Structures are given as C-alpha cells and as structure tokens.
C-alpha cells in the first residue's frame, strides 16, 4: 500500500537552514548536509529545501549545496526557491534534485508550469502555494514573495482557483502552505486542506501548523493528504520522526518502515 509521507522542510538562507515564525525573524538551525543526512537516517520519506530568500531578492543564488545533498542521501528531495526558468530548473535537477518546487515565479508567469512539465515531466513539477485566510473577506488568498515580508503581495488568485489552474498547466504535486498556521504549531488547517483536496487530483502535501503527533494523524485522516510537511517540530526536537511514524502506524495510517 502506498505510504503517507512525512516530509521535513529545511528553509535555507545563505546556505544555512533557518526557521522563522510566520515567515519572520529567521534564526539559524544548522548546516544543510548534516541535517539532511540526519533526517534521512531518522526515516524521513522525503526532504524539501526551500531557499526562502531567492525569489524575493532577484539575485542569482548559489545552489551548489544541491549536489552535496544528492551525494549523501538516498531518499527523494525537492528544491524550492528562486527557480524562475526552465534553465534554472534544469541545473537543479542535473545536480541531483528529484523535483523542483515553483511558487512566486509560477504566479508571475503561469506558462512556466507547462514548460517545466514538457521539458522534465510532470513528476518533477511541484507547485508551492502560500495561502492566507483573510478574515475580513472570508476567503483564502494566494500570496506572492513571502520570503521577504516587505515585498509580500496578495495576488488576485483565490487558493482553490489557483489549485485548479496549476493542475491544468501540468503540476505533478501541490504543497499547500497555510500561512496563518505557519510556525505556530497549533495544527494543520484541516478545513482548508480538505476543501482543496476535493479538487486536487495530484498528490497534495499539507504545510504549516504541525505541533503534535495528533496533528499529523488529523491531517491524514480528515484532509486525506498524501504527505505532511513540517519544520520547527523536527528541528527543535519536539517530535522525533521514528516515534511519529510508529504512532501513525499504530493509528492504522500506512507508513514506510
């Protein structure tokens, strides 16, 4: 049976793994390669490396760490941030990444999704979506350039519409980051994820809000997501991956052993 995936996300800034709260106040967690190795050994099913500075400050980012990761780990990993073209994606994939995740550049030029699909195949193309629940309008809005608070924009897209659009354009997987929950460890946004799940025919990964093992159980059981992504609970040692996977296995959620 296909296992549900546990995916630690390592936010990368200037070649170091960092973590902020609701996208702010980034503090250094550690070096990339030893952390990647440590998570692979602990039983992570996949890793995401999110270069959070890249999309917002428009510079060419040194991605040589991608091949250093590919050399040492034997589980799949995805690289996000600053991939704005087919050429950028090609370089990251050639260095050994299994997938690229596109967020702000896909909003700026949705045809990029199709180009990546045609060049590298659907399985390589992950679309990251930063979704913010706006209480005044009671809508989920897609945000752009979330790596830099000063430049963060509210796009004209409502989240459900953008999810449909990216699938039509060739996305192979969607990572839905529910920004209101990010970094505060109060649980995944089950209501939003379940609503998006209903119109998402490709794998859907939940992101933002994991604080306890019960949060993972809830998101798999109630939102039927394919994977759950988390950062701070793993980096800060609040949840150990082997214990989490055993707990979920005990709850009859299929986990890779």
């Amino acid at each position, binding site marked *: *049976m*296909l*296992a*549900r*995936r546990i995916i630690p996300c390592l936010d990368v800034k200037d070649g170091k793994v960092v973590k902020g709260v609701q996208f702010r106040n980034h503090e250094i967690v550690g070096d990339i390669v030893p952390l990647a190795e440590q998570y*692979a050994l602990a039983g992570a*099913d996949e890793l995401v490396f999110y270069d959070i500075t890249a999309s917002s400050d428009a510079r060419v980012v040194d991605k040589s760490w991608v*091949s250093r990761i*590919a*050399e040492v780990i*034997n*589980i*799949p990993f995805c690289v996000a941030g600053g991939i704005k073209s087919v050429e950028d994606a*090609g370089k990251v*994939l*050639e*260095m*050994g990444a*299994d997938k690229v995740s596109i967020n702000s550049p896909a909003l700026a030029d949705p045809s990029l999704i199709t180009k990546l699909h*045609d*060049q*590298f*195949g*659907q*399985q*390589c193309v992950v679309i990251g979506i930063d979704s913010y629940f706006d209480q005044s309008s009671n809508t989920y809005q897609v945000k752009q350039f979330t790596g830099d608070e000063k430049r963060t924009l509210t796009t004209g897209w409502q989240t459900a519409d953008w999810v449909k659009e990216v699938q039509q354009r060739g996305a*192979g*997987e969607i990572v839905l980051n529910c920004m209101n929950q990010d970094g505060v460890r109060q649980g995944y946004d089950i209501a939003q994820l379940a609503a998006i799940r209903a119109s*998402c*025919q*490709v*794998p*859907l990964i939940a992101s933002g809000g994991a604080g306890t093992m019960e949060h993972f159980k809830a998101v798999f059981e109630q939102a039927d997501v*394919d*994977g759950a992504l988390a950062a701070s609970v793993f980096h800060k040692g609040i949840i150990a991956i082997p214990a989490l996977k055993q707990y979920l296995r005990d709850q009859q959620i299929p986990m*890779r*052993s």
Partner: protein
Amino acid sequence: MKLVIVDTGCANIASVRFAVERLGCPVTVSDDPEVIKSADKVILPGVGSAPAAMQKIETKGLITVVRELSQPTLGICLGMQLMTRQSEEGHVACLGMIASEVKRMQVGNLRLPHMGWNTITANPDSPLFEGIADGSYFYFVHSFAVSVGDYTLARCEYGMPFSASIGQGNFMGVQFHPERSGEAGSRLLHNFISQC
C-alpha cells in the same frame, strides 16, 4: 568491472551515479557508443516523458547501440519503460528488448502520478531482488506502467496490480527509483552490480 550509465540527457543521472558511487563502485556516464558497448554492465536511467526520451536517444544515435547490448542492462523508471515495445504515453515505439507494453494507469479515484513509497512482492528466484523481503518499500513516481505478465520480476499495487520490475534475457528494469529508495534501493543496485 566497468559500469556505464547511458547519458540519456534525462534529469536523474546524477542521483543514479551518486547511488552507485555510494556502493563503492566506479562508474562512467557516457553517450559514446564505444564506451557503452565495452561496458560490463549498463544502466539506462530516465525521467520525463517517453516520446521526449526516445527522441533524445535517437538524436544521440543510440537506439541500435542500446538494443544490441548483450551485457546485463538495468533500466530505471522511464528507462525501464523504454525497454518495452511501446508506450501509450505519446503513443511512441520504444526500444523493444522486453516484450511488454506501457499503458496509462487506471486507478479509479486515486491520485496520479503514483508518487511515494510503496511495497513490492518479488519473484522468489529473481537475483535482482535477492535479500529484499516482500513488503519492502521503494520510491515510485509515475503515471504509466506495465501490467503484470510473463516478464514481471516484481509486482506492486496502486489501484491496480502492475509490474514493479520486468526482465527478459540480459535486460531488466525497475519502475521505482532504487537510487532514492533508501536501504532497499541500495541493496537492489548492489544486487545488479554483483549478482546479475
């Protein structure tokens, strides 16, 4: 032992090379027909779409070279699919070393691509799967597959049973990514290098 990875121009070549190197086995990545022909063992990697990959292999002048290999040759993911007669993906003729065909998976309400870790059951006599217990997890990413048939070496299930591995003569292939399948994947690559 001279191991060569065919440079198909596809994206996962680095991961396959690193995985083999982690086993301590030197490896050459090449699209030179003479280098490929002189190898003791060959790996044919591949990701992306079947028509695009066939086009690349044709452009590099490697179709006949790969077809006529007589040494053990392992296709990975799309590389495995290219070893069959044809693929429904773009309705393309493939290399035809294994008498199977590739079709789009029919999985009902389940999601495609079939992406993630799934369990396999191997034929007991397959050297490629020696020491790999039934129920071992491998990493899959694909929407097309070979159904279970005469050339199946291992099977998997996702909405339908399908071949996790196929083989005919010196050609064998795996639908999953051994280079990204943890310890079980390492064991499979080790088996290919030392047992096949």
